[in-house]
């Protein structure tokens, strides 16, 4: 907000309208710097829409934050009543009055006491106002609600003229003033006057649609400057008013290439870069009981484990319920709650309208400054708004979160079992990553299949993984792809068993073949042996005859030699005898 102030200062030489910061969260953004300095602003609206509170906060914040004393002229409530009413917001009016930071003056006009006896004017009011302003050097003035004068006094002509004079007087006095007014039937105020003489008109509205009330604010006119023209929801809570300037939809957000883990290692592996981008938005959708909250809890657990603050918006379960349930899958969120890293923000969707949810979330996020935000589930918000309203709300939320570099994970319930291309909230086109969990029903059981529908800016697996929730946490397993399609759960187990059996049989068959081969070999080898011995015996026989032959020859040679020697003694006779015997 101080930046706004510095932005304004260089404009002053151009005699442009100077503005006074209200200090009310969001209002200064819508009015682009606050209310017109030194001019009257009208805040109008029906009963109970927060006029008095808004104007009083203007005074109190001025005194506390901008050191601008203020005068509050109350026509409706007495000073001590006002003090009691705003004590719950932490504003100590009595103390501020003692310090001369603010001055509250109660003007009471009671018709029953008054008799009008002729012409008059409201100079008394001017004098009191003047005195109050001068006594504390006030820069801000509130008149709440000036119309009460009309209930006490009857001469409309005088009152209207005096009111006009009052606006002019306030301008001359140079105070930044707020005048509150009840809303009229067709005009913004009952008298139809204030809106014309004010330089800035803010309309407050308290609408009830489907039994859910939403307060809205609109800057109807602002002379001499641009301003947000939409209706903006605002919230009144224990810290005063916060207005949400919602549609700053410029697509110029800073982006980060940092990645971080989803808390499920197997899921990180499916994403090429090992996780999601920081500041991205992730949608987890699936039918009932598919483990969306578990994924969200795991995501948030991982963020806390890294030492990053996480904010868990629960629209369905209470924080204690979530903590208990997540303990069953081995995620201890209580631990993170104790260390202050994790904060739950649980509210029933029907507690207030969508816009109010947005304001409340906005506020909680601004306050806690988390790195990771979980919305579980966004589907429940449908109960308080139409699809298009939810979508526009989420657009603005994502927009805001991206601005703050906060990673957000939504879970969404697909109401029909046929998961189509769009989620019910139609946010799929807005998110950066979309995980889809679907039921795979087969063989009388239901299993979960997870796949990544999209993940901007990174390669990702196109495989369907089986999503398992166990005591140890979450895991993803490759599914079996058989001839009958993908197999999960016990079918997958059965298929695995089947393949194992096949393996055993196969190795057995190989064993049998091996021994057969061995046996054959042995047979052949024995055959070879017998042939060998046959050959040896034949050879031996042949050798035998051959030796016999040689022996015979030797013996005959020896015989002949003997005969020759014998014949040598008998000469020729023996020779011829030898020849004959040879024949």
């Amino acid at each position, binding site marked *: 907000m101080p930046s706004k102030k510095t932005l304004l200062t260089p404009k002053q030489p151009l005699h442009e309208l100077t503005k006074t910061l209200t200090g009310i969260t969001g209002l200064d953004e819508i009015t682009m710097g606050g209310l017109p300095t030194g001019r009257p602003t009208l805040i109008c609206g029906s009963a109970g829409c927060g006029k008095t509170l808004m104007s009083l906060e203007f005074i109190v914040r001025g005194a506390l934050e901008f050191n601008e004393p203020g005068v509050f002229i109350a026509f409706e409530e007495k000073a001590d009543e006002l003090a009691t009413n705003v004590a719950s917001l932490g504003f100590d009016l009595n103390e501020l009055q003692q310090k001369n930071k603010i001055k509250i003056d109660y003007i009471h006009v009671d018709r029953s*006491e008054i*008799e009008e*006896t002729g*012409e008059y*004017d409201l100079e008394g009011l001017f*004098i*009191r106002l003047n*005195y109050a302003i001068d006594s504390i050097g006030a820069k801000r003035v509130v008149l709440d609600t000036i119309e009460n*004068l009309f209930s006490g006094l009857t001469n409309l002509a005088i009152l209207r003229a005096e009111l006009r004079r009052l606006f002019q007087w306030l301008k001359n006095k140079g105070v930044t003033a707020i005048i509150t007014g009840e809303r009229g039937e067709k005009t913004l105020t009952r008298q139809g006057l204030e809106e014309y003489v004010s330089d800035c008109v803010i309309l407050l509205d308290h609408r009830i649609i489907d039994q859910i009330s939403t307060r809205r604010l609109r800057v109807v006119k602002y002379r001499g400057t641009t301003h947000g023209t939409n209706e903006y929801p605002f919230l009144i809570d224990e810290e005063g008013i916060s207005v949400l300037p919602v549609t700053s939809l410029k697509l110029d957000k800073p982006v980060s290439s940092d990645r971080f883990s989803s808390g499920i290692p197997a899921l990180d592996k499916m994403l090429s870069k090992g996780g999601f981008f920081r500041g991205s938005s992730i949608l987890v959708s699936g039918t009932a009981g598919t483990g969306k909250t578990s994924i969200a809890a795991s995501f948030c657990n991982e963020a806390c484990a890294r030492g990053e603050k996480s904010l868990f918006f629960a629209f369905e379960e209470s924080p204690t319920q979530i903590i208990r349930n997540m303990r069953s899958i081995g995620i201890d969120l209580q631990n993170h709650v104790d260390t202050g890293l994790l904060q739950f923000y649980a509210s029933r969707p029907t507690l207030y309208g969508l816009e109010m949810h947005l304001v409340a979330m906005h506020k909680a996020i601004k306050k806690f400054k988390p790195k990771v935000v979980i919305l579980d589930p966004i589907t429940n918000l449908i109960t308080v708004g139409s699809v298009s309203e939810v979508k526009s709300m989420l657009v603005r939320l994502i927009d805001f979160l991206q601005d703050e570099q906060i990673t957000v994970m939504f879970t969404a319930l697909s109401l029909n079992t046929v998961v189509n291309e769009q989620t019910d909230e139609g946010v799929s086109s807005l998110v950066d990553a979309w995980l889809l969990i679907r039921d795979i029903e087969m063989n009388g059981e239901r299993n979960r299949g997870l796949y990544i529908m999209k993940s901007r800016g990174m390669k990702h697996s196109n495989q369907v993984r089986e999503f398992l929730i166990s005591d140890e946490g979450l895991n993803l397993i490759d599914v079996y792809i058989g001839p009958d399609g993908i197999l999960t759960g016990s079918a997958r187990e059965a298929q695995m068993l089947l393949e194992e059996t096949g393996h055993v049989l196969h190795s057995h068959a190989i064993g049998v073949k091996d021994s057969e081969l061995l046996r054959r070999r042995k047979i052949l080898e024995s055959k070879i042996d017998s042939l060998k011995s046959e050959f040896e015996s034949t050879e031996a026989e042949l050798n035998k005859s051959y030796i016999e032959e040689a022996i015979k020859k030797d013996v005959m040679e020896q015989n002949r030699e003997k005969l020759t020697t014998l014949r040598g003694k008998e000469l020729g006779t023996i020779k011829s005898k030898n020849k004959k015997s040879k024949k």
Partner: protein
Amino acid sequence: MSNKRDAINWDTTEDEIYELRLFVTGTSPTSVRAINNLHVILEQHLKGRYELEIIDVYQQPLLATSEDISAIPVLVKKAPSPVRRLVGDMSDTNKVLRGLGLL
């Protein structure tokens, strides 16, 4: 012209004393008219039974706050009760008398 005390206290036996305060703003036309008109009425109907204090709120703005004054001129009847406020230049004599409880 701070406190213009016009307390004329002649006869107190007949009735209660009227305690009146008239708040005016300087010498503005309505204020002057109111003072004149009131004097005439009081002299006619309440001669000697009233205490009138004319206060210029320009001079005493604090009194305007403590007396809760907004419309001016205004005549505040402090006593006898009930407290009444008569706003205007007192030109409507009937209304003034009704306001003072004299009609």
